[in-house]
């Protein structure tokens, strides 16, 4: 399978360049992925042929733009197997989607003494909205811990989720350790206690098949830019009955039914949650990204990344002076690998790798509580995607070895 994916490079001209005189090896996909020509072309086509505001005009371009925008919604619905297209809300991204839930559903349903349960490995985007809601409502924010292997501690989850819990919000895949969490089991636990299940799918939807009905989640948020789509567009999936009962997020044009001087009614789902002119081109670009991934097949995407991790992780772990965080078993890993070199700050590692043409991230990855729990200040992180190859993994290994030698000897 890995070899089939090599042909994809032609779709990603950005990868065909040198950085610091070396072949670019882009391993910062957890931060943002690259976009294939097909997605860029969809944006160009829209702007050059169909651009108009949606839901607002009777003219032909407005109809075309509206049809394209709504078609993109339909593609996403199929992609994550939502029961109904109205359950797909366009947002700016994962952060926006999670804030939407906290400030509408959370605002309406969380009261003093209630609990919100998240985990210690959450991205700040799935932490701060709940933390601030808890402060405002005098609710308690609880954190599920990790097992020694960096997986979510399900025994702890069972203990932390109680009848006082109103919201459980957990990342489907960690953006640091590459851990995949059992969202379906968590949803079952949450529902047993009358809580809603929110999943942060930013690192899952781009990399594995996701079926929101099978997972039985109530809300599921993700970003377009991590799955080959444009920036500034994302999706919030919400169960229809919940969305219908929720107050709007923002007020303005497009989201209204009737507006009177002293009162207003709201538009039907999903437009109730889409106030103002939306990122129309972004939605259409996301639709093209969904087409691209669908054509590859998410099972194949997952398999490709697992093959790369199965190849790289054991070699990385075997390298003296390197620590890989999170599961050591490749089968339990997404293509996200956080690591440190002994006696070397990850920033120095990232600068050295950059000189070798390799793009990795170094820092706390917007997960400071996780860093604290791991007793770390920061890590380096390499994250793989569909266009990465075994040659990229080899280049990382070679360059890490060279980096170690450089800093051990002060020269090369």
């Amino acid at each position: 399978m890995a070899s089939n994916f090599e042909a994809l490079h032609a779709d990603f001209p950005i990868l065909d360049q040198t950085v610091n005189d070396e072949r670019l090896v882009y391993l910062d996909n957890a931060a943002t992925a690259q976009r294939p020509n097909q997605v860029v072309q969809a944006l160009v086509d829209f702007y050059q042929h169909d651009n108009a505001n949606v839901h607002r005009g009777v003219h032909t371009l407005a109809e075309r733009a509206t049809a394209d925008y709504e078609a993109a919604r339909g593609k996403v619905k199929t992609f994550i197997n939502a029961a109904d297209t109205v359950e797909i809300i366009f947002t700016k991204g994962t952060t926006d989607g999670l804030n939407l839930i906290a400030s509408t559903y959370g605002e309406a349903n969380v009261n003093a003494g209630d609990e919100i349960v998240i985990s210690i490995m959450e991205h700040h985007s799935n932490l701060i909205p709940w933390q601030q809601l808890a402060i405002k409502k005098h609710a308690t924010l609880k954190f599920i811990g990790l097992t020694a292997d960096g997986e979510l501690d399900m025994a702890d989850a069972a203990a932390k989720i109680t009848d006082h819990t109103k919201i459980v919000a957990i990342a489907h895949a960690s953006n640091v350790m590459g851990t995949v969490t059992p969202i379906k089991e968590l949803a079952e636990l949450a529902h047993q206690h009358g809580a809603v299940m929110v999943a942060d799918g930013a690192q899952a939807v781009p990399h594995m098949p996701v079926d929101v009905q099978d997972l039985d989640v109530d809300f599921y948020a993700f970003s377009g830019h991590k799955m080959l789509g444009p920036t500034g567009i994302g999706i919030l999936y919400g169960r229809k009955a919940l969305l219908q009962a929720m107050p709007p997020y923002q007020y303005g044009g497009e989201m209204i039914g009737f507006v009177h001087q002293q009162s207003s009614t709201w538009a039907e789902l999903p437009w109730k949650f889409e106030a103002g002119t939306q990122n129309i081109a972004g939605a259409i670009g996301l639709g093209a990204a969904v087409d691209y991934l669908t054509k590859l097949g998410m099972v194949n995407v997952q398999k490709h990344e697992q093959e790369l991790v199965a190849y790289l992780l054991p070699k990385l772990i075997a390298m003296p002076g390197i620590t890989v965080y999170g599961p050591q078993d490749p089968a339990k890993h997404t293509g996200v690998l956080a690591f440190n070199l002994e006696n070397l700050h990850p920033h120095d590692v990232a600068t050295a790798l950059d000189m070798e043409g390799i793009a990795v991230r170094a820092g706390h990855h917007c997960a400071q509580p996780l860093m604290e729990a791991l007793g770390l200040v920061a890590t380096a992180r390499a994250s793989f995607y569909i266009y990465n190859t075994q040659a990229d993994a080899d280049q990382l290994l070679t360059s890490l070895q060279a980096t170690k030698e450089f800093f051990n000897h002060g020269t090369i």
Partner: protein
Amino acid sequence: MGLSKLSGLYREVILDAADHPHHKRALTSATHTITLKNPTCGDVINLSVQLDDADLIQDIGFTGEGCTISQASASMMTDAVLGKSKEDALTMAKTFSDMAIGKEHSQADMDELQDAAILSNVMQFPARIKCATLSWWALQRALLAEHGGNEEESEV
């Protein structure tokens, strides 16, 4: 070609300073202390300065965690300002910040910085400029703090 470019940033003196930093300790008799963090990478510096009655830097020390560049820079900064007046130290901090973003300074100003001037190469690595300037900002903030001996936690 690959890592050879790194030698421009990680000179021998810098690697040495990071491996064996000078003045890496907390002062017990500090008159000015500060904790600064770089939230983007998690680097932390706790800086303590002891000024005497004539506003001369009698002692200086730092603790904390950071990358090679930030550790080397803190070590070089403490070497450069020890024994200097508060005013001179502030001038040097300004020179360093300017230098790190590529502003020209007189040779005399640069000489004042001693080894720290070597870090001027950092401007070729824009993502790393903050690593080099963190300790100098800490010095500036500590010396300019209204009340001596305060503890402040702040982000740059």
